[in-house]
């Protein structure tokens, strides 16, 4: 198990600077998620950890030792690729055994470890099959077994669930999380799926264009996003945003005035769909669309300020399409961002129009 540290790490591909300056610490035994949109440099960071890419600058430390120059094969890192990258010409047994082939180890111990790793992810019946004869979920487990069999000090998962169907994804999410807790191995999960990140990780590192946007627990990121980017990236269905101009006590957006508390200036207000309610007074509009989501119903409301999403509990629709409604919310649930810098203004509040 290891504590991992990035110190001002830079990565360039030719002239393209993919990661300008990355500094972060991952504690021993921690499960962190690297979350960010496609192309933001998540895989690149992961591959630097694995030793596949050499950092162009800065330092990478395992347990306080600089490992920049240490070769991939000596890092004792287990990795599950997005494509699983199983060796197609080998049986599952040989795939799982492969990492042990390069360690001097007695034959019985090797086979014992393979069986234990296979048991851990429940693929013991599949040991004699080839990867092409496995389902996506089974391949994923085998890849996990192969990553775990050498008892790595660091486990890297590159979007391991993206090829699975929704139910299987749910199961594997739980399984990977409990496995990680059981083994206590430091784990980095790369994903662009915020639900995956929030459900599995102890801590989320949100990245954008090679930079860290915010680090925090899933709850931090959800309740106190430091920037508009995080606020819109985390949460499903996505947050509603209203841009306006704040002056003494009022924020004007279009023709609507919201009670405002805070310093004047151009602001953007973020309102979570599940924190909006249909009330007697507030922002008026008309229900344009209704999306039943099982235990909840998502209403898309056409207001003067554009479409707003409102999430209501209950599986029976209380409102019909075309019905006029007014939307209310508590000022404490509003998130106010500075429009220019997109940073959160922690002291500002916005209430529903009277």
């Amino acid at each position: 198990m290891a504590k991992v540290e990035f110190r001002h790490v830079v990565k360039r591909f030719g002239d393209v600077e993919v990661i300008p300056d990355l500094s972060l610490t991952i504690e021993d035994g921690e499960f962190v998620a690297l979350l960010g949109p496609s192309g933001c440099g998540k895989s690149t960071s992961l591959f630097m950890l694995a030793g596949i890419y050499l950092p162009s600058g800065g330092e990478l430390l395992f347990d306080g030792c600089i490992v920049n120059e240490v070769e991939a094969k000596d890092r004792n890192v287990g990795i599950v690729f997005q494509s699983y990258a199983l060796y197609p010409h080998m049986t599952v047994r040989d795939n799982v055994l492969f990492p042990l082939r390069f360690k001097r180890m007695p034959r019985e111990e090797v086979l014992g470890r393979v069986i234990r790793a296979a048991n851990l992810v429940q693929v013991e019946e599949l040991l004699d099959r080839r990867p092409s004869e496995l389902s996506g979920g089974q391949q994923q487990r085998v890849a996990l077994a192969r990553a775990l069999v050498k008892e790595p000090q660091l486990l890297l998962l590159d979007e391991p669930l993206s090829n699975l169907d929704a139910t299987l994804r749910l199961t594997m999410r739980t399984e990977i999380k409990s496995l990680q807790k059981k083994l206590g191995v430091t784990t980095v999960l790369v994903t662009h799926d915020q639900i995956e990140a929030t459900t599995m990780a102890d801590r989320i590192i949100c990245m954008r264009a090679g930079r860290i946007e915010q680090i925090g627990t899933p709850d931090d990121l959800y309740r106190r996003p430091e920037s508009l980017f995080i606020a819109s990236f985390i949460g499903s269905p996505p947050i509603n945003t209203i841009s306006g101009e704040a002056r003494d006590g009022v924020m004007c957006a279009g023709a609507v005035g919201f009670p405002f508390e805070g310093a004047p200036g151009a602001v953007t207000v973020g309102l979570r769909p599940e924190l909006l309610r249909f009330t007697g007074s507030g922002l008026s509009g008309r229900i344009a669309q209704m999306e039943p989501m099982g235990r909840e119903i998502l209403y898309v409301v056409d207001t003067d300020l554009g479409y707003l999403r409102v999430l209501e509990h209950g599986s029976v629709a209380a409102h019909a399409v075309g019905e006029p409604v007014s939307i209310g919310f508590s000022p404490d649930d509003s998130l106010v961002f500075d429009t220019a810098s997109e940073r959160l203004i922690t002291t500002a509040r916005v209430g529903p129009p009277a």
Partner: protein
Amino acid sequence: MVAPGVFGDLPSGPAAAVDWDRMASRARSLRRGKAAALYAFLIAVSLPIILPYFWLVTIAFSAKTGVADTLVLWRSMAVFAPAVIAFWLVAMLAQNRRQLWLGITAIALIAMLAFALLVGPDLHLRNFIFLVEPDFASIVRSRVGEVRGAIQFPSVWRAFGNSILIAGAQTVIVLTVASLAAYYLSRFQFPGRAAMLRSLLVLHAFPVLTLIVPMFLMLYWIGLLDTLFGVILVLVAFELPFAIFIMKGFFDAVPWDIEMSALTDGASRRQAFVWVVLPQVRNGLLAIAVFTFIRGWEEYIFVFTFLIRNTNWTMSLYMYYVRDDVMGVNYGVVSAVGVFYLVPSLILYLAAQRYLMQISIGGVKG
């Protein structure tokens, strides 16, 4: 859902009654006609392709010294041609695999029986005398009473060994160099990579024969003229560009991530290459191996130019000189040498064809 009237006013109702039976029977006869035409074509094409080989074998086992006997050939053909036609007819008419195999077995049995009756009495092994008697030319000639001027032949096994050596060594070198070079070209960026790829193709475009004089001079000056090693080097040089190009296509198709995975699993770059990447391009290696070996096995013009001593003769040279020396006397011996020369490449193809069939050159790109 389609709104009414989108397709205009279609005729509807029972007014447009269709004679399905007539249409079905027309389609059926059309299909039969096409199948018949196809099989007629196959018969017409396959006969002249297979016949020479068939004759070669028949002559090798039946021709006698000094006798220009074509009667046996006609008789063998009377067995062979109907057999081929019957084969295609069975292929056309068989409803399933079982019928097909039954039909083919029946045809084969009948054909073999007819062959044994019509041609069998003429068959003998005397034309294969060259396998045991290096000086067979004198013996063959003495049967017709003119011994003078016979060429001194080396043992055919010597020529056979030389050919195996040339083809085998060439194959091993080409496989090794081509897979390493192609891997490097596929995986690494370096200055001049694009130019190198382009020149690989251009190199292969030259007719190799044009270089025969400079090659002769080069070998002469290096001191490799009239050595097997010299010929092997020349052949390797001419075979490599295309082999590299083909192999690069195969390596390009191997995903990066299994290689990266091998590296993080503790393999060195070389181990990852051997354990993980090479098995993925096995079919490519096999194709290159078979074609390179065959190419070396049938090589004629370079060995003819660069090898002089008769102990350095390859099978192609042996064949050439046999033809030169005893053709007029006994074409049975020439055919027998031909059969002997043919057998190894035939065996190789049969052994490898299962893999060769899986190869598509579609994976190749620049």
